[in-house]
C-alpha cells in the first residue's frame, strides 16, 4: 500500500498544471481516487448529513448485483448441461458459466471504460465511477452465447449515444444498460431471438432442447407451463443475470436497506404489473391473458428490471409522487407490451425506456400540481 502511495505521489507533479503530462490529468486523477480516498478538503462551510457519494452508490449497486451475477453464471452452466442431458456438479456449472460470462464482462468494461476515459480526457472532466454499474448490467441482460463484437458495439453505442452526448454520467435520459440491449435487439433481431438463451445448443447440437424462454413461447401464442418454483429460483433459460427473481429480490432488499434504490419505484412497478395482470385475467381469452398475474413477476426480466433498471436514480422520476406514477406505469406497460405485442417478448425493457423518456414530464406535472395545491392554501 505504502509503495503504491509513494509511486503515485512521485508521479503526481507530472500531471499537475504545468507538468508535461498535464493533458492526461483526468486519467491520473481517476486512478488515484479509485485507489485512495481523495484528501481534498472542503474549503467553505459544508452541510453533510451522510458521506454518500457517487463512488459508494455505484459500489453498493455492484455489491447488490453479486448474487444475480454468481447465480447467473451457475445457471448458464446448469442450463447447458441440462440441455445436453449430462450430469454436472456445482463447480462444473459455475466453471462453464464463468467461461461464457467473463469474456462478455471484460469486453463490456474495456470498451465502456475506454470510451468514458477518452471523453473525460477530451472534455477535461474528472473521471467518475458512472460506468461501473452499467458495465456490469450490460452483460447481465445479454444472452450467454452472444458474439463479443456485438457486446462491444452495443456498449459503445450505449456509452456514446446513450450517455456522453447528453453530457456524461448523471445527464443521461435513458438507462445506458437498457440502451445497449435495445440496440442489439433492434440491430440484430435474428441473433437476439430463437435458440440463444441456452448456451452451447445453437446449430442443432441438441435436438430435444428448444431453448426458448417462457416469454418466447407465450409470445408465439402457445401455452406455456410456468413452473412457479423454477421461475422464482431462476432455473430457467434466459439472459445471464436476470432469470432468478429470488436473487433480484436479495439485491433489491440490499438496495433498499442501504437507501440506494427507491422502494417506491420497486413496489409500484410490482403493483402496476400485478394490477394489469389481474385485469387481463378477468378479460381472459388466450393463454397469455390467462397467465396468473403473479407469474408475470417471475418470468422474463421483470424482477431484474424492476430492481436494477427502473430504479436508476438518473433516468427515473425524481419526486416521490412521480416515482409512484413512474413505477406503476412501468409495470402496466410491461404486461401490456408482453401480452398485446408478441413481436416484442421482453416488455420490461421497452416499458422502462419509455418511462425513462416520460419521467421528466411526470415530475413536471407532480411539481405543478404541488404548487397549485399550496397556492390554493395561500389564497384561502
Amino acid at each position: 500500500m505504502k509503495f503504491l502511495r509513494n509511486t503515485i505521489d512521485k508521479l503526481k507533479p507530472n500531471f499537475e498544471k504545468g507538468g508535461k503530462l498535464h493533458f492526461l490529468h483526468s486519467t491520473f486523477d481517476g486512478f488515484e481516487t479509485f485507489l485512495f480516498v481523495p484528501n481534498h478538503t472542503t474549503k467553505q462551510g459544508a452541510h453533510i448529513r451522510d458521506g454518500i457519494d457517487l463512488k459508494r452508490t455505484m459500489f453498493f449497486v455492484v455489491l447488490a448485483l453479486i448474487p444475480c451475477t454468481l447465480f447467473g453464471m451457475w445457471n448458464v452452466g446448469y442450463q447447458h448441461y441440462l440441455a445436453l442431458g449430462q450430469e454436472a456438479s456445482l463447480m462444473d456449472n459455475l466453471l462453464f458459466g464463468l467461461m461464457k460470462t467473463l469474456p462478455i464482462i471484460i469486453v463490456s468494461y474495456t470498451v465502456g471504460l475506454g470510451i468514458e476515459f477518452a471523453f473525460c480526457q477530451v472534455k477535461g472532466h474528472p473521471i467518475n465511477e458512472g460506468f461501473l454499474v452499467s458495465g456490469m448490467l450490460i452483460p447481465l441482460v445479454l444472452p450467454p452465447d452472444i458474439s463479443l463484437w456485438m457486446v462491444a458495439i452495443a456498449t459503445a453505442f450505449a456509452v456514446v449515444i446513450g450517455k456522453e452526448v447528453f453530457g456524461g454520467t448523471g445527464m443521461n435520459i435513458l438507462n445506458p444498460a437498457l440502451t445497449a440491449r435495445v440496440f442489439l435487439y433492434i440491430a440484430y433481431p435474428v441473433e437476439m431471438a430463437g435458440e440463444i438463451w441456452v448456451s452451447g445448443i445453437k446449430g442443432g447440437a441438441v435436438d430435444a432442447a428448444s431453448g426458448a424462454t417462457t416469454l418466447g413461447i407465450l409470445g408465439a401464442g402457445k401455452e406455456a407451463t410456468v413452473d412457479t418454483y423454477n421461475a422464482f429460483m431462476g432455473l430457467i433459460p434466459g439472459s445471464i443475470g436476470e432469470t432468478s427473481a429470488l436473487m433480484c429480490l436479495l439485491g433489491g432488499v440490499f438496495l433498499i436497506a442501504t437507501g440506494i434504490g427507491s422502494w417506491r419505484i420497486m413496489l409500484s412497478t410490482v403493483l402496476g404489473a400485478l394490477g394489469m395482470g389481474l385485469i387481463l385475467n378477468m378479460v381472459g381469452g388466450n393463454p397469455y391473458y390467462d397467465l396468473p398475474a403473479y407469474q408475470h413477476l417471475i418470468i422474463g426480466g421483470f424482477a431484474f428490471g424492476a430492481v436494477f433498471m427502473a430504479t436508476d436514480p438518473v433516468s427515473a422520476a425524481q419526486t416521490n409522487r412521480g416515482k409512484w406514477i413512474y413505477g406503476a406505469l412501468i409495470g402496466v406497460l410491461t404486461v401490456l407490451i408482453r401480452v398485446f405485442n408478441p413481436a416484442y417478448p421482453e416488455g420490461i425493457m421497452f416499458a422502462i425506456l419509455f418511462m425513462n423518456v416520460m419521467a421528466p414530464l411526470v415530475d413536471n406535472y407532480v411539481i405543478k400540481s404541488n404548487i397549485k395545491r399550496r397556492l390554493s392554501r395561500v389564497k384561502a
Partner: protein
Amino acid sequence: MSTEAQAIEEVAVKEKEPLLSKKNRKLVNNPLDADNPITVQVLGVCSALAVTVKLVPTLYMCLSVLFVLIFSNLAVSMLRNVIPGRIRIIVQLLVVASLVAIVDQVLQAYAYEVSKQLSVFVGLIITNCIIMGRLEAFALANKPWPSFLDAVGNGLGYAVILIPVAFFRELFGSGSLLGFNVLGEGYQGNGVMMSPVGACIVLGLLIWFQRARNGYSEEA
C-alpha cells in the same frame, strides 16, 4: 426624399452587380454549412430519414429536390410581382406540384426501380419544408438570378447532408455502397441503420460534428 434617392441609387448599384459577387456567392455557400437547411434550420428532415437507406435512391432524391427547388424558385421569383399576396401559398404549391409531377413521370419512365423504392417520397417533395421555405423566404422577394443561386445552394446543402447519411446507413446497414458489396458476404447487417432510427442517429452525429467544428451553440 433623401432615403428614396438612396434606395434608387442602391437599386442602380445592384443592377451593376457582377453575376458571382461576394453576396451572390454567399447565397450558394451559406446553405452548404453555416446555414444548412437540414442541420441548422432542421427543415426537410422527414425525407432525410425516409429515403437514406441506400445511396442510389438518395442520389436520385437529391437530384429531384435540386431540380424542383431551382425551377420553382426561378418561376416564383419571376412571378413574384404578379402573385397576389393572399393566394401566394396556393400559387407556390401549384408551381411545385407541377414540377414534382414532371420529376415523378421522368423517374417512372427512366428509373422505374428507383421510383418504386422512393415511392411516396417523390410526391412528398411538394411538402418538403426546404422548398416552401425558400419560396416564401427568398424567391418571393428576390430577382431570378439570386433566387436561382439560393436554390442551388439549398439543394446542394440538402444533398451534402443526405449523401453522408445514406453512405453510413448503406455501409453499416447492408455492408454495401451504391449496391456493391464492400464489407464482405459475411457482414451482418445492422438493423438500427436500416430503420429511420439509424438516420436520426447519424444525422445527430453529423450535427454534433458540424457544431463542434463551427463552434455553434444553441442560444439559451
